[in-house]
């Protein structure tokens, strides 16, 4: 950290360190919950959104998908909430990439399509994927 010309403290931290740390914290938090209070995860059984509206929320089934994954049932996990499983897989892949980059084993990736302005395909694609997954959850009775 160093002072800039404007007197601001500069923290030139790479995105891999920031998001790798955030991901590691979340992973450690989840692991601690599993290790220290497994009954807590077993007891939180319902979704407030679904209990109130009768319609599953976009993240409904994520806990069951995790349980299926823990049991080695990838297909079962995908059937419960496909987007949650894919997002989790993406998160794990990114975490491994971040750790390898921070360790200096691979170079950082800076994809141009992730900068502003975002390409129209992505601007429409991301909400469409979320909506499609939600519709799947609603009609599959998740």
């Amino acid at each position, binding site marked *: 950290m160093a002072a800039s010309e404007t007197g*601001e403290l500069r923290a030139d931290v790479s995105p891999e360190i920031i998001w790798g740390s955030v991901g590691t914290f979340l992973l450690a938090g989840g692991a601690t919950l599993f290790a220290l209070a497994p009954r807590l995860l077993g*007891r939180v*059984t319902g979704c*407030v959104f679904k209990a109130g509206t009768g319609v599953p929320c976009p993240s409904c089934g994520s806990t069951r998908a995790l349980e299926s994954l823990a049991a080695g049932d990838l297909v079962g996990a995908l059937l419960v909430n496909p987007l949650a499983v894919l997002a989790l897989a993406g998160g794990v892949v990114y975490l491994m990439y971040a750790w390898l980059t921070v360790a200096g084993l691979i170079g950082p990736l800076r994809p141009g399509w992730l900068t502003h302005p*975002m390409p129209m395909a992505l601007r429409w694609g991301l909400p469409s994927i979320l909506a499609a997954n939600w519709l799947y959850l609603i009609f599959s009775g998740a």
Partner: protein
Amino acid sequence: MFVTVKDVLIDAPRTFAGMIRDGGLGNPLLFLLILATVCGWIGMVWGFLWNQAMGATLLGSGAMDYSQLGLEMDPAMLAFVSSGLFQVIEALILPALILVVFFIEAAVFHLMLLIMGGANQPFETTARVVAYATGSTAVFQAVPMCGGLISFAWAIIVIIIGLAHAHETSVGRAVAAVLLPLLLCCLCCVLVLIFIGVGLAEMTGGSL
């Protein structure tokens, strides 16, 4: 620091329009960590006192039917959550939690701005707005009872104003970027409050 808090709370449009957009995350993070941690600790003390007064009589007595919320609360777990030990653990990890929540929040808002076509500046700008807005409005958490609610509502307004001015985008896009992700969370919170209200009304025979 106090001048920044005053400027953000009183005159957010001018403050964020004149904010340095690429000044790094050092100062904003320090600002956020100090204010949110100290005020968060004060808020936790108020919360603990409130829990001791109300939680033991209503929530912790088993009179509340948590199954109405879709939750099956273990009495031992409930006792632990209401205990002083849990508060101490929560206080110790609060700075780390603040940082993690801050980065996730800033990332979600920036992603929403990108999708809305309103992100005219890099992620750094969004993160600086969120840090200064959240840090400044965190002072309300020191207010007993309704401090958290005031802090949350004021932060949302300041973040919307800040993003609109710092990214030089329309207020409509900033509103959508901030409110759309919060919509589902808020809906869940409202449902929880309704269920708790119904539960309390049933317990008191509708005298509330």
